[in-house]
Each structure stands twice: as structure tokens, then as C-alpha cells.
């Protein structure tokens, strides 16, 4: 199963992620 998030955000929004990394519920995805 998969979860896809699609959202609008200001242009300075950045993801704190790397492709392929493991993530757990509650950990940061990104911020301005």
C-alpha cells in the first residue's frame, strides 16, 4: 500500500528527505 500527499505550499517549502529513506509516522517531512 502507498500514501500519496499532494499539497499547495509557499515556494520556500523544503522537504527534509532523501529518496529511498525509511520514515516513521510523526517524523518531519518538510517545512518552510
Amino acid at each position, binding site marked *: *500500500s*502507498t*500514501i*500519496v*500527499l*499532494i*499539497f*499547495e*505550499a*509557499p*515556494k520556500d*517549502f523544503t*522537504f*527534509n*528527505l*532523501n*529518496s*529511498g*529513506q*525509511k*520514515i*516513521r*509516522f*510523526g*517524523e*518531519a*517531512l*518538510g*517545512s*518552510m
Partner: protein
Amino acid sequence: LQTMSLRAVTRARAIRLLVATGGGYVGYWQYGKYKEQKQEHQEIEILRPPNIANPWQVGLYKSIPTRLLSRAWGRLNQVELPTWMRKPVYNLYIWTFGVNMKEAAVEDLQHYRNLSEFFRRKLKPQARPVCGSHCVISPSDGKILHFGRVKNCEVEQVKGVTYSLETFLGPQTWCENLEISNSKTETFQDQLVTKEGNDLYHCVIYLAPGDYHCFHSPTDWRVSHRRHFPGSLMSVNPGVARWIKELFCHNERVVLAGEWIHGFFSLTAVGATNVGSIRIYFDSDLHTNSPRYMKGSYNDFSFVTNNNKEGITMRKGEHLGEFNLG
């Protein structure tokens, strides 16, 4: 004699030193060569176009009755296991998929009557602290397949393999509840962006069989609309996501759309062969992986009613839904 032995010792030391430095140099040189080759290989991997399935291969895969198989699998896993069978069955699952039972709210395996119950096990409250300093958090455990800005109305399921944003979310007939523009000159992507200076972003999280399969609200937002797309139930593992273009548009999915502080926000749960059912806790009307729904259609439900103009308010980290076997 004494002079000769001293000479021999000196010579032996020199040889050892030579061998050590020479060996070191050869090792270093080999390591450099190995690193160079690895880098070259990685660059080739990046440049190489992904091996996409032909339309007939996709058609053949889609012709497999995955929905029927999924429902049969679900039924099988709802059968109550005798107490003596529970530990070995669940231990096999734990061992195969690397489940961490120390995080489970109930660690006692005998407690779970069947594999379906075990699959939707809850976590201990302290197992997943919710990050307070970032505005968007991960709604589930899993693996990040891809993330970034949405470009040209196309979203990437993995690097280089795209799907259409419009096919994935469906037509914007639901946008009357949201402050979304409906100008015919704008692209579908532009219509979703409600505020000037904003952009559209996406993130794909893959949940492996051993992962915690409940999902939570990724931010503070208001859910105004649900759209259920009955569809195929092909595997969504990263290998298949790399192979089948538009995989997420073929598969059964539930789109929750609404608004957050910066405008449009949506969360979509995409089903898979073994995990075909999606449950949203506040939506009792939703029935996924059901034979009564035809592939290719979609069913809408609005949470914005006369009594509830706001929709469903969700707080960051709040329980939102779960995936189920079958």
C-alpha cells in the same frame, strides 16, 4: 658474523618496508579504481531510462483478477486461528517481514484472533512522537519513494516514472467546496493552487508488509471531500512502481481533499493486492474493494453539509485511517 647478521636484518627490514608501502599503494590504487567504477555505474543507472512495461504487459497484468484474489485473501485472513496456531503463524510473519513487536500496543501474540487483526495492530502511544517543529509530518511508517514539486501536471511515482495529476485526482467537480479557481485557461495544476506565490508539492510513501499500516493526519487541515476510485489491485512495491507507468491511477484509491493553512491539501491511500481495503475512521459510508463498484468509475462524498460547513477538522498526528488485508 656479527656484521653479516646486522646487514641481513637491515635488508629484511627494507624488504618488509618496501612490501608494506608497495602493498599499501596497490590497495589504495585498487580502491580508487573501485570507487571510480562504482560512480560510473551509478551515473549510468541515473541516465538509463526506466524499463517501462508495454501496454500489452500492463493489460495482461490488469487482466489477472487481483480484486477477486485480494478479497479471497481477506476472507481467509478473517478466519479465527486456534490459539495453538497463533504464535507460529504470527512469528513466521514477524520473521519474514521484520516486524518490531516491541512497538506494538499489545505484544502478546495470542491476543490477535487472526492475521487481519494482527496486521492492523496499534502502536504504543510513546512509540512515535509527533514532530512539533515542522508543519508536515509523515502520516505513516514506510519508505519515501519520491517527493518534490509537481511539474507540467505530472507527478512521479518513482524517479522518471510519471502519472497524470488529473487522472489520479479526477475532475475537479468537487472544488465548489474549496477555494479553487476554475478558469478554463489554466492547467489542472494551476487550478489547484489557490494562493499567489505558492506551488504544488507531492510525496509518495510506500508501506512494506511488515510496517504499521494505520495512517494519521500529516498536518492540521480540514477534509471537505472524499473520492473513492474502485480499480485494479496491482502490487505497489517499488519494483512494480518502476515498471508500470500510471500505476497509482490504475489501482483502487481513496482521495481525501481539503484545505490547510497554505491552501489545497490532499492525502490519497492507494490499495494493493494483499492490502486492498482502505478504511477512513470518520467515513462510515466508504466501502473499498467491493464487487458492487466498477473499475474506472468514482464515488464522491462531501463532508461539507448544511450542518457542518467546515468539513472534518483533523489535527496533526490524529488517527485518520488504516489499510486492511483483502
